[in-house]
């Protein structure tokens, strides 16, 4: 066995109240694609930040080609040969691709030489990009290519990729994997962070699994099953969600009719004539690459964004598109927003107070306007119990909860209102597998009790698991709606890149106007 390209020994990082990394050992061989696997809060981000010099470890050492090194900041990491592609891109919209890449290089260099270098790399690794294009005109997938090229011009020995596929269509993911495999065949090691198990099995040679800041396993993903990997991650038997095959013949409770709204955000996406209906008992999923109008669609349905005409959104056939969120709630709508802290919950208020946030129409406020604290606390306690919310009691501040626990609380709060219609934005984004299963089961159970559920998500596995029917949003337009059993990932993936014009005509007779 050759010397590891990068080796970590006993890396430990203590944050106030959390031991984020506890004596972590990890070794990456040259040219290896190494997965770093773990639930949210397992310590993956902290560990890669230590490798990239963003955070300093309290103890432990980093070996580079067998020799101990000290990485004080990202520019030292880059000088060594470590590149990192962050989950959130750091690009300037108003600059060109080449200018953006130039900004990431520490040494003096010539922009013309760099441009030809970019063209060469883009050719060699199958990352098509025009160096002269402005970043604001690029798609999310193209922006990621810019980030990758930015790392590659520095000729890295180790490339860190943090959840790179969460913003890509299945086709783009395939492309990315080809690039990564090419890189690894040329001797560049890749540290690949993800919680998507199938991807890791396809791509990675070896894996280190973290749980609660500790390494729980080193394994070869191809020799494992998704189930066994998931169990290493969450440390117990994976719960499964059950659903009954129910017939969808109920009446329509929520419908959109030609919903068209310009986005208030100059970088947002305008909604462009969206039609859909959700029946009693139905779970309808809307897939799509981030930034294609999901945010606007959700805000329009909840009423934070007011539509131009009242009948564009109907609850039980009555137009509600111009009334306030409170009025829509009074008619039986509940909503789980994509941002938890600051929108779904008030960060510095207790869980008890956050229970009141949206449940105020349910006997928690007296006719004189006084809060019924007994009722409110009881409601918070029941949410906590029914949805297994792990917190320091109901007086804990919302911001003290982990993302998954807070999401369970918010979804629990909305579901326990027994809404007629539940709309969810990215319900399990960044939530660990265990919590996601609880959330999925609760959504399915609510639908079987007769609610209409609309789920907007980027996670296709999730949509195929819980939805009765699926549609895709792309550039503010909605694809035809297909029963889940009559479509597949390939078709939805194709639609995600906007190619559903033919399909629209083909199934037009099936979709009620």
């Amino acid at each position, binding site marked *: 066995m050759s010397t590891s390209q990068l080796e970590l020994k006993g890396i430990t990082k203590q944050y106030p109240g959390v031991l984020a990394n506890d004596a972590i050992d990890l070794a990456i061989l040259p040219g290896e694609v190494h997965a770093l696997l773990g639930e949210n809060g397992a310590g993956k981000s902290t560990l890669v930040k230590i490798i990239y010099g963003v955070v300093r470890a309290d103890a432990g050492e980093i070996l580079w080609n067998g020799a101990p090194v000290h990485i004080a900041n990202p520019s030292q990491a880059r000088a060594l040969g470590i590149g990192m592609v962050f989950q959130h891109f750091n690009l300037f919209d108003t600059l060109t691709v080449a200018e953006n890449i130039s900004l990431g290089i520490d040494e003096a260099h010539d922009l013309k030489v760099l441009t030809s270098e970019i063209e060469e790399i883009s050719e060699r690794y199958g990352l098509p990009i025009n160096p002269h294009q402005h970043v604001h005109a690029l798609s999310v997938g193209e922006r990621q290519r810019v980030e990758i090229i930015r790392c590659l011009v520095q000729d890295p020995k180790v490339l860190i990729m943090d959840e790179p596929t969460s913003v890509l269509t299945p086709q783009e993911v395939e492309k990315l994997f080809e690039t990564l495999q090419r890189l690894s065949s040329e001797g560049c090691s890749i540290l690949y962070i993800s919680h998507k198990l199938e991807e890791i099995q396809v791509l990675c040679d070896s894996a280190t699994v973290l749980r609660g800041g500790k390494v729980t396993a080193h394994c070869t993903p191809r020799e494992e099953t998704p189930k066994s990997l998931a169990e290493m991650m969450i440390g117990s038997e994976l719960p499964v969600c059950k659903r009954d095959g129910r017939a969808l013949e109920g009446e329509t409770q929520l419908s959109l009719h030609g919903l068209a709204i310009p986005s208030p955000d100059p970088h947002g996406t305008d909604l462009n004539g969206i039609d859909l209906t959700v029946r009693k008992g139905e779970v309808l999923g809307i897939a799509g690459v981030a930034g294609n109008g999901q945010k606007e669609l959700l805000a329009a349905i909840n009423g934070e964004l007011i539509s131009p005409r009242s009948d564009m959104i109907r609850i039980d056939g009555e137009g509600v598109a111009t009334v306030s969120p409170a009025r829509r709630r009074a008619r039986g709508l509940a909503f789980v927003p994509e941002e938890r802290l*600051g*929108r779904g919950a008030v*960060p510095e208020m207790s869980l008890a107070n956050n229970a009141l946030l*949206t449940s105020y129409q349910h006997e928690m406020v007296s006719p004189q*306007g*006084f*809060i019924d604290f007994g009722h409110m606390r009881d409601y918070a306690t029941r949410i906590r119990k029914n949805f297994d919310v792990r917190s320091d009691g109901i007086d804990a501040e919302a911001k003290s909860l982990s993302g998954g626990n807070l999401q369970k609380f918010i979804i629990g709060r909305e579901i326990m209102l027994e809404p007629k219609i539940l709309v969810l934005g990215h319900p399990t984004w960044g939530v660990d597998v265990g919590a996601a299963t609880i959330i999925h089961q609760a959504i399915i159970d609510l639908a079987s009790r007769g609610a209409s559920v609309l789920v907007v998500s980027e996670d296709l596995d999730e949509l195929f698991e819980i939805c009765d029917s699926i549609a895709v949003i792309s550039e503010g337009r909605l694809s035809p709606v297909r029963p889940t059993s009559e479509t597949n990932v390939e078709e939805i993936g194709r639609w995600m890149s906007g190619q559903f014009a033919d399909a629209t005509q083909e199934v037009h007779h099936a979709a009620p106007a």
Partner: protein
Amino acid sequence: MLLRLEPRQTSSKWMQYATPLIAAALTVITGVILFTALGRDPFLALYTFFVRPLTSVYGIGEWAIKATPLLLCAVGLSVGFRGNVWNIGAEGQLTMGAICGGGVALAFWGNEGIWLLPLMLIAGAAGGLAWGAIPAILKNRFNANEILTSLMLTYVAIQFLGYLVHGPWRDPDGFNFPETRLFNDYGLMPVLVEGTRLHAGVILAVIVTIIVWIFMSRTFQGFKVQVAGQAPAAAAYAGYSQKGVVLLSFLVSGALAGLAGISEVSGTIGQLQPVVSPGYGFAAIIVAFLGRLHPFGIVLASLLMSLMYLGGESLQINLNLPLAVTGVFQGLLLFFVLGSEVLVRYRIKLTATPKEA
């Protein structure tokens, strides 16, 4: 080397209560340095500033009288500040309250009854409320910055008062002094303690404080204000009207500032004069924050601020120091309150200057 503020993971509850005390202590220490630099005996000066005003029953009465308008204004402002609505114009709303309430007294001059004082109080509160409504409407309608509009309207109100007492409302028997007639007995707040000027306004202020406390901590409207202040997106998500919170905050703080104005005019001055407040409406902003925006904290803070007014006068009379000392102390106090507030939430870190650009 660079100084950097880094948020603390946990802000200590204990420290949150201690900050106002620490700030007060730092103010006193700075006072010692200040007086020493001025060549005065610092301890005599501090005694004269903080203790001497309270050595008589009359003095204690004055203490409560000056705390009254501060308390009324600050409790009202705290509602808005909790909701992230910045009414800086309590001084103007106070002045408008004095004008409207005083106007009632003058309108019924020579035709009084027991009903006069309640009517004046209602008119005063209504005047402040109406004046407060203007920046709220401008903000809701045109998204005009309420800090600017409420501040500018303060000067409009003060000029308007000046116009009235120099012109149409001037006392016809007043030898051309810019003052209105003295209010009749029915238009004056009853005195509570013989030998002092302590008037019923202080009871009013305490009752109002309790009502505001109940409103903020027990009612759903109060909860909405706090959500709007802490997380505007959550308020929008849950369907709370942001405009409603702006309007409510301004109406409450405006009405209470107006009440402070008429209580001051009918309790201590007894007539309208070109200046009815030494800046209570502005000092109340400091009081509100010093009291951590909590009604009971604000009671203590308004007593401290009132003592500073008395202390300044006492220094002027006894040690011949300028009245501006009061302003200096107010400024120091606000500086230390805000400063220690920052340090409770953040820690200072020394970092090496980064090499890369």
